[in-house]
């Protein structure tokens, strides 16, 4: 085990991560390095194990095999001190936002600070208001999550994730169910606050253009394995057949539709 170094150049190092459900393998040996201070997106089609991968990293799911290192320190299941340290320095933004619906906006953001730090009430209030002001939500402090729009709920979830000043933020499909304009806005928001707060962002998504525009590095997951890792520029010119298929899916759809319209193909061929 490497000694803990908060300034380790690799924020997250995953080795041979495996996970199965009912003997059906979902992750088949994931190896990945996420550089510190970068935005790293894991792309892939639905059902390929992206969220499972992220939940294994966050210890919501227990991996069957493999090792995870955070800033050089292994997060083994027996080392509770390392796990606690990881939890203190990491935040998770759920696909569903996982907001506490019986708490107000301010109470939602204050919760991790109240429960996991020894900060005083005034300092907690100050930090929460700061985070909410930066996310342009200061005027909604007393509202409940159900009274907010989808985009505002996403911003509230992000405010709760960054209020503890984490070094790593895990984003699980942050744009799921949003229209293209909101998708762009969410990725722009992640990029903006990543630069402002200097955290490492690990995002799983299937929104290719947005992820390529906002990320420093991308990985492509296919059937539980990493099919590609590189920069967005490398992804755009990669000859890897699965990368091409995934990247050019819109063009492929156009070609398939043209074939259907011309009578040369049927929907069942798709």
């Amino acid at each position, binding site marked *: 085990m490497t000694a803990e170094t908060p300034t380790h150049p690799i924020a997250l190092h995953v080795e041979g991560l495996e996970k199965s459900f009912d003997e059906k393998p979902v992750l088949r040996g994931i190896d990945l390095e996420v550089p510190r201070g970068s935005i790293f997106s894991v792309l892939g089609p639905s059902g390929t194990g992206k969220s499972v991968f992220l939940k294994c990293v*966050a*210890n*919501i799911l227990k991996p069957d095999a493999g090792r995870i290192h955070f800033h050089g320190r292994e997060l083994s299941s027996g080392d509770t001190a390392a796990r*606690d340290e990881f*939890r*203190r320095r*990491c*935040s*998770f933004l*759920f696909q*569903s936002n*996982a*907001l*506490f*619906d019986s708490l107000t906006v301010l109470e939602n953001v204050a*919760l*991790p600070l*109240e*429960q*996991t730090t020894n900060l005083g009430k005034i300092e907690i209030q100050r930090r929460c208001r700061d985070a909410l002001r930066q996310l342009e939500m200061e005027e909604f402090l007393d509202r409940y999550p159900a009274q907010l729009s989808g985009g505002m709920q996403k911003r509230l979830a992000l405010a709760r994730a960054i209020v*503890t000043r984490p070094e790593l933020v895990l984003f699980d499909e942050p744009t799921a169910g949003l229209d293209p304009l909101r998708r762009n806005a969410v990725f722009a928001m992640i990029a903006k606050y990543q630069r402002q707060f200097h955290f490492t962002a690990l995002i799983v998504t299937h929104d290719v253009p947005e992820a390529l525009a906002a990320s420093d590095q991308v990985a492509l997951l296919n059937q539980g394995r990493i099919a590609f890792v590189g920069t967005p520029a490398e992804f755009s010119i990669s000859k890897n057949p699965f990368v091409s298929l995934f990247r050019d899916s819109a063009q492929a759809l156009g070609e398939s539709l043209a074939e259907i319209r011309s009578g040369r193909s049927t929907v069942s061929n798709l």
Partner: protein
Amino acid sequence: MLYKLGRLSLNLVFEIGDFSLFTARAFGSLAGSKLLLRRIARAVHEQGTVCLPVIAIVGVFTGLVLGLQGYHVLSRFGSQGLLGTLVALSLVREMAPVLAALMLIGQAGSALAAELGIQRNTEQIAALETMGVNSYGYLVAPRLVAALIVFPIQTALFVILGIWGGSLSGSVLLGVDSGIYWSAVHRAVEARDLQECFTKAAAFGILAISLCAYQGFHAHRSASAVGARAVSAATTRAVVISSIVVLVADYIISSFFI
């Protein structure tokens, strides 16, 4: 058949062990819980204030029925004077702890199971864990402490209103002398009866609330249902199992006090 029986027994042993660990974890997390008093106060309000009208209504009517039935049974032997004794001892030793617990399970316990089930479904519990917040300490422990406060108080209220209901039907409606009724109540109830009453109330509180919390907390484990159906199944299981466990525990505790 033998295979099924074996599997059922193993599941039962697993569930009992897992439930015991769950309750132990919840109590164990009390030491590290922050803002505990605020959460306990909220839980006392949820379990206590909300259930107060139901407890009051059921308490009064139980006393009224006890007075009515007791009077007709005792009058066969010319012992109407013992009506106060019958009503008071029935309520203190058995009826108040059991019925108050069943009412609280129906109202507060089912609400708790549904709330935790929804929190599990919407990943709120997972969110707590990723934040480093002990979900047992935050969600379950305050409810258990509140149950230790609320169940005995609600039981006491049930006893008082029940005895008053008994006097209403016995003395006011059926003509038993009020002085005789209240003096019989006073003479019948001893310290040991009150001890039994409050021991049961506290034990039922812990058992019922931890069972309801356990079912809601693990709503996602159900193999036969997912989503909203899993929450509904967890709520039903919570009410049925905790009601049965309260009745079994009542027999066991009673046998120690007899």
